[in-house]
């Protein structure tokens, strides 16, 4: 009975480069459309809170925009969605339900860490300071 030859594959694996990606040192290749870190562009956001209501993981908290930043007139309550990436399941429900398409999506995935990780810096970075 002809046996399938596993040995050549084994030797190839021994001599070749390891298939394991050394993750923190080497980045894993992901698709451009991979569901990664996303945040609200506050120039478009009106603070309607729909994303916070619809979030299945309850990861979005509507937070006040600090006084030193200029919020658009369409956002009279001066609130913005702060995403807690530790809670987020990256289903992108907030992205698809947003009536103003305010969410910016990226394929960034390296978010593991000991510190609190939220979209605060990214979202507030889209606004300009009050002169």
């Amino acid at each position, binding site marked *: *009975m*002809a*046996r*399938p030859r*596993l040995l050549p*594959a*084994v030797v190839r*694996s021994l001599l070749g480069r390891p*298939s394991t990606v050394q993750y923190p040192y080497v980045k894993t290749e*992901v*698709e451009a*459309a*991979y*569901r990664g870190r996303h945040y609200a562009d506050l120039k478009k956001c009106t603070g309607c809170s729909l994303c916070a209501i*619809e*979030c*299945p*993981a309850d990861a979005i908290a509507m937070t006040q925009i600090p006084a030193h930043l200029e919020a658009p007139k369409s956002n009279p309550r001066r609130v913005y969605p702060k995403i807690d990436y530790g809670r987020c*399941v*990256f*289903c*992108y*429900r907030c992205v*698809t*339900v947003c*009536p103003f398409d305010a969410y910016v999506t990226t394929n960034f995935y390296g978010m593991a860490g000991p510190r609190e990780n939220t979209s605060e810096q990214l979202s507030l970075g889209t606004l300009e300071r009050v002169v």
Partner: protein
Amino acid sequence: MVDKVVELPVTIEIPVGPQHPALHEPVLLKAYVDGETVVKVEVNTGYNHRGIEKLCEQNTFYKDIFIIGRVCGICNTVHTDVYVRALEQILGLEPNRRAKYLRVVAMELERIHSHMLINAVMAEVVGFDTLFMSIMLDREKVMKAKEILTGARVMADYMMVGGVRRDLSDADAGRIAKLVEQVRERLTYYKRVFEEDTTITKRLIGVGVLKRVDAVRHTLLGPVARGSGVRIDARVSDRYDAYDELQPEVVVRGEGDSWARMMVRWDEALVSAEIVLSALSKLPRDGSPVPDERKLPRKFPPGEAYTRVEAPRGELTYYVMSDGKANPYRVKIRTPSFTNIVNSAFLYEGYTIADLPVILASLDPCISCMERAVITDLRTGERRTVPFTQLSRGDKAWRGRGFYLL
């Protein structure tokens, strides 16, 4: 003078599970052994009860789509598909053909990687780690195809009421087809390995034989039943989504042993690869498959729906009831793993301890290895938990304490 010696058998109760790195699901199998032979197995479940059905009642219909995807990581698209189809029945919505085709592609990709995973785990259980690594490496190609299609390797979150959540471009369809073709080649190779390799055949053939009549009597589902000659497949009997046009061939084998169950999985993975390729080659172009989630109906009329789907592990059914409020009144989930594991305790009897993980893995929750033994002294009824490392030190250490390992 002593002329008669009465030997009292010591019954060893070996708990398999509930926690082990190789386990998919925490299940405890209490195996009672007489020497090496398993005489009785009790199946204890409930270690991973998360109250998802109740959670669904407390969240809206749309939030539940994402909660239900987390019932099981391996088969999340089939879970969401069957739930979303139940919602569509209640709403009276019908997705377009392209959406149905894309759903089938996602579900069949999932079937391929699920079957590859359990076959790899089986190779690991029988001690063939090289094969395990090799299969898992090729499985990454399917995960990549799934990432191209849905946007994530595992958690697809792909199904939505009225369609799917992202469209597939022609270039990406070509890339997926290329990956699946590569995988199909490897699947054929692995099927041959499982047919001809001595390690695999020696450990699997004739182990855990399940007769056709028992499979039907104990309501076993999916590849377990099909490995025993029961022709059961919800894809063929229900023809949901695009399965009316993409008819799968039902793989049935008559042997009924662990090997037949694994071979059914390889054949099914090959059939799935064919379905994916044919679905990609004739993707209909009848409009966008992606519904605008902002315009989907917010209110659900009172009503109920009962839908089923052929998950990689067998028939998965959902019952969803709406009483006209924002949240579902009831979501009942019946998973194939539960029926297959709880009703199959009779399958282990008469086989050895070494066969226990093999039979269990062939049912596809893949719980392997024992961690410690509970020694029951039949004279006093005393039960002691002994680490396995201590047990392996030999018989001598036990003689002084009045225990005999027979």
